[in-house]
């Protein structure tokens, strides 16, 4: 897969995606580029990974171990240093499950103002399908100095109060969970009872677009026209909308946030990471079924 094929898909910000060809050509550029694998299956990196890539674990690395929140700026700076990422390093994410966790990691990087980011279109599956090199070797990357950043949640993250205001203003929302979760039949994903909620349903007015509809079978993103058909044709969004996306804990909706922000060019999209585990457990929160 090449950059030309990405260009042809008509995205608002095609630079937010790189091809497997691009990664193959740049994987030895340890000074300027860091390839980061972030998977749902947290030991996949240990099974094999793209040469010179480093691993970021969404639970252990990106979450605060005590408070329900992401890591603080000091820890982020330390993590970047360990992974050999400087403030100007171009970070290219890839992972399993249609880059689900790759986009989540990218979203967390953006909270800390690390904007030089991209996703490898097609993720791990595409790289492997093309028969490209994988390795067990963990690279020794040069440690980097990363000044402690400021975390700015306001632009791309929504808290419950923001969602309440958004609801009052009849702002558009996308619920990216499965139809069963959206309709309220399922209070949690099978086998994830700890991420359940006391009430089922969705935030009033939210449209349901399961996150993975943005991906093709080979793991790459659908073209801008195909995505517009889904998010604008079916879900009723319009360019320029201020959109809130949510799921259960904010990971699936980070994928949709990426699609709307980078691929379709919506300027104001926020990911509500409190999502249904917060809303569906909150006393008095309005719910629709």
């Amino acid at each position, binding site marked *: 897969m090449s950059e030309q094929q990405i260009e042809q898909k008509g995205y608002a910000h095609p630079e937010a995606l790189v091809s497997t060809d691009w990664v193959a050509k740049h994987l030895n550029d340890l000074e300027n580029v860091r390839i980061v694998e972030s998977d749902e*299956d*947290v*030991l*996949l990196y*240990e*099974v094999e990974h793209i040469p010179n890539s480093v691993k970021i*674990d969404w639970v*252990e690395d990106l979450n605060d171990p005590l408070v329900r929140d992401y890591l603080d700026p000091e820890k982020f700076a330390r993590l970047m240093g360990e992974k050999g990422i400087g403030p100007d390093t171009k970070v290219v994410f890839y992972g399993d499950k249609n880059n689900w966790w790759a986009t989540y990691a990218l979203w967390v990087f953006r909270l800390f103002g690390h904007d030089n980011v991209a996703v490898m279109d097609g993720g791990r599956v595409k790289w492997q399908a093309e028969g490209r090199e994988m390795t067990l070797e963990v690279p020794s990357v040069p440690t980097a100095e990363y000044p402690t950043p400021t975390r700015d949640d306001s632009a791309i993250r929504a808290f419950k109060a923001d969602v309440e205001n958004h609801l009052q203003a009849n702002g558009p929302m996308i619920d990216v969970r499965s139809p069963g979760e959206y309709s309220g039949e399922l209070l949690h994903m*099978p*086998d994830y009872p700890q991420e359940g909620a006391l009430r089922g349903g969705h935030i009033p007015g939210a449209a349901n677009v399961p996150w993975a509809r943005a991906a093709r079978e080979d793991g790459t993103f659908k073209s801008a026209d195909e995505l517009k058909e889904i998010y604008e044709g079916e879900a009723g969004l319009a360019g320029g909308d201020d959109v809130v996306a949510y799921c259960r804990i904010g990971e699936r909706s980070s994928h949709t946030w990426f699609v709307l922000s980078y691929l379709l060019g919506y300027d104001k999209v926020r990911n509500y990471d409190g999502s249904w585990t917060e809303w569906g457990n909150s006393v008095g929160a309005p719910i629709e079924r």
Partner: protein
Amino acid sequence: MDRKERVAFLVDHFGNPRHKGVLEGADVQMPGGSPECGGSVVVYLKGDGNGGIEGLAWTGQGDTISMGATSIIMERVRNEDVTLREVLDLDYEVFVDSLGRDVIGSRTRNATLGLSTLKNAARKYQRDRRTQTEKRASA
């Protein structure tokens, strides 16, 4: 084993799963888990009629931890001739400790998918045997 060796052990079981496949003539076929969340397995169990295990196998798909840990527990039970009663006494915490907390992290549910399904299979086998015995006694 250090962390690296424990990871390699799990990854080896994931890549070369032991006792994987359908067991023809099994007394119990017990499903567990979910393909969307970590993994799903089916445990096939055949008892020897005296509280022991004559045959044990499993099928499934899922992530490295759930599949690797299922293979590890199946091999352990087979190699050590663990009885049905002993299967029910196996401790989840001890099993996760043996895999390595530093490897499993918060994915204890994935790590114990195989063991919990095996326990369910053992319980079903014992229940079925009791029902048969009661039927015979009342016949």
